[in-house]
């Protein structure tokens, strides 16, 4: 019996047709100067106008019912859309998290009213969500969250602070994990709940954090006596830990875990075609072989998820391998570019490469650090 379950799934002609449509659209937008490609675009490049265009084309909300503004397609269609937008380095950051994570959460736990109200706006590329997990004292040790929601008449009163919330400054909602009752002795996983907070409510303060390159795409979010209605508790009261870890496991194997820096390679390949020396061939061959293998793994998992199987170990492995590959890719491109005299590098190449280098540190942090991933893998190997 083999330890790891990665099915090989052949491309589907209908999906490839969708891919061609995406490619044509993205080329048109880029050529028209409507966006400048960037690495790590799903985290750090947001353009609400671009998101609305994606919404109009029907490329957000692919997986949910048309009753809620979705498009009755599958997670495999969504996979193609995400991988093509990553390849293009398109500014998809505004809608990415709501589309990937919070819409499915609302579908499962939201009220009918919330679904009818919010999901169509997400699908239109008009409504954005931020993740509310980390706190100053709760990074890798997520169970240490201190932000509290106290039961009050008709709802919850929220006090505390979240941090590193990407896109909160342009988002309409945050789904936060909050302490709704005290930990049970040493078991800190009880008493945590997921609550959706309208970020326009009184008592919410959002302060951007500037990253090392001068960009401000993540935030601190403060809550001071914010009153959230009852129906914003998503799922089970006290069941937040299980919900969050389940969610994290699902999102670890997506294409954003290994293709976020592909635009850097793509740009270099355009410059370097026919110009690489033989020493560089080995680098390129190895890099592409790695990418092909990772894509096979990620696509295999997407197909398992589509069938209702949740391969947690495999997803953690993909994230660890993928994050390593992303950072290696940028370094390999630097080496490949040595084959081109520097005066022939395009300004675009330089810009993209530098953005890629500056945005590389969080690759191995977000969504669970490398160390946390290896701990999860070790547990699943039976080592702890």
């Amino acid at each position, binding site marked *: 019996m083999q330890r*790891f379950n*990665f099915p090989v799934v052949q491309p589907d002609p209908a999906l490839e047709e969708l891919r061609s449509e995406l490619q044509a659209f993205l080329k048109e937008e880029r050529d028209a100067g409507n966006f400048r490609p960037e690495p790590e675009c799903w985290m750090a490049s947001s353009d609400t106008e671009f998101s609305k265009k994606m919404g109009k084309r029907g490329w957000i909300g692919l997986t949910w019912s048309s009753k809620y503004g979705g498009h009755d397609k599958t997670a495999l269609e969504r996979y193609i859309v995400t991988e093509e937008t990553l390849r293009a380095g398109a500014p998809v950051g505004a809608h990415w998290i709501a589309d990937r994570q919070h819409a499915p959460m609302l579908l499962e736990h939201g009220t009918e009213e919330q679904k009818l109200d919010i999901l169509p706006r997400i699908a239109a590329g008009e409504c954005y969500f931020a993740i509310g997990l980390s706190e100053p004292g709760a990074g890798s040790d997520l169970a240490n969250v201190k932000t509290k929601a106290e039961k009050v008449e008709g709802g919850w009163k929220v006090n505390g602070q979240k941090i590193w919330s990407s896109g909160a400054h342009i988002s309409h909602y945050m789904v936060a994990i909050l302490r709704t009752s005290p930990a049970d002795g040493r078991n800190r996983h009880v008493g945590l709940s997921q609550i959706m907070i309208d970020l326009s409510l009184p008592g919410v303060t959002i302060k951007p954090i500037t990253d090392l390159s001068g960009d401000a795409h993540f935030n601190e979010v403060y809550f001071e006596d914010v009153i959230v209605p009852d129906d914003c508790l998503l799922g089970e009261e006290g069941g937040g830990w299980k919900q969050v870890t389940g969610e994290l496991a699902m999102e670890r194997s997506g294409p954003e875990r290994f293709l976020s820096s592909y635009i850097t390679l793509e740009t270099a390949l355009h410059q370097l075609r026919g110009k690489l020396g033989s020493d560089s*061939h080995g680098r390129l*061959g190895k890099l592409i072989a790695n990418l092909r293998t990772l*894509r096979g793994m990620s696509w295999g998992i997407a197909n398992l998820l589509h069938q209702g199987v949740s391969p947690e170990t495999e997803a953690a492995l993909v994230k660890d391998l993928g994050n390593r590959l992303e950072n290696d890719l940028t370094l390999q491109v630097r080496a490949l570019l040595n084959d081109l005299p520097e005066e022939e590098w395009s300004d675009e190449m330089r810009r993209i490469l530098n953005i890629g280098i500056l945005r590389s540190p969080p690759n191995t942090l977000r969504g669970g650090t490398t160390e946390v991933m290896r701990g999860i893998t070790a547990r699943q*190997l*039976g080592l702890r």
Partner: protein
Amino acid sequence: MINTEGMVAETAAKIYTDLCGREVPHEAEAGQYPQALWDALAENGLPLAWVSEDNGGFGADYDEVFGAIWVSAEAASPVPFAETLIANWLLDRAGISIPDGASTFALLDGNAASVPFAGTADRVAVYDSSKNEIALYKTADASAADGQALSPDSDTRLDFSTATPVASAATNLSRRAVEPLILTVRAVQMASAIEAALNLSIAYVSDREQFGRPLSKFQAIQHQLAVAASESAAATMAATQAASALARNADDPEKAWHEAVVAKVQIGHSVEAVTVPFHQVHGAMGYTQEYDLHHYTRRLWGWRDTLGNEHHWSKLLGAELAVTSPDQIWKGVTTGAWIAS
């Protein structure tokens, strides 16, 4: 995931379970060849799985047989089962009748070739792309270079310049049509050996205690094996992808070339990333002949050289990609279609 269900793989699994327990590879290296294991494989016709029915085989699909190869590598097979499958495939393609017994294969460069299991296999099927010819030799008729082998089945340099073939025939198989099968068979064996060695390592660190607790409780050990596990999973994926490409292109194996090369490159480069932690967590015990780990790690060190090492193949693949359009490369990465249709 390599499919180990189906008659061929299940038959092989039963034979290896019954006749290739953990002591058998040790005994084989001490000079006690497991003839009973080979005989059981032969009696069940397994070495003829890829031979056409006209030539006495049973023309099995590629993927059915890869499961049997996975099983044989998991048992550190001391008999050249995979090599005989490849040799018989080559001979069958040239219409040469299949000899009894264990064989191996060679892709000639000049008069010589690097040949696995040369000390064990009776015969060697030699593919010569310069003459478009496949020939069958007695292994003993070629002159073998003296040297230190990496493992019992690793390559030995054989020179055929003074040897006379037992049979030969012209072939229209291109080298690029032969390479995918050989590379994919090795990829499957290597992925299987990596996983088997991972399992050994997990068992060892769970059992061995230092500083009053099992090694498995140390984070430094856990992380080393977690990284090795990710490489193991990637190796299995790459091998499965190559096996699937070959199965889909049975009539035109050249079309499976890129996926086979991807597997060769991916897995070849991962050998160091797995054998280092496997040996590290085993301490000195893993360096002994008595313990089982070397049955896998030495084979991996040998197998990564098949038809040239991972650096050679990275360069070959890269040289092609270096003149390919970025659109086509993306298509290859995402769909496995590496050549414009």
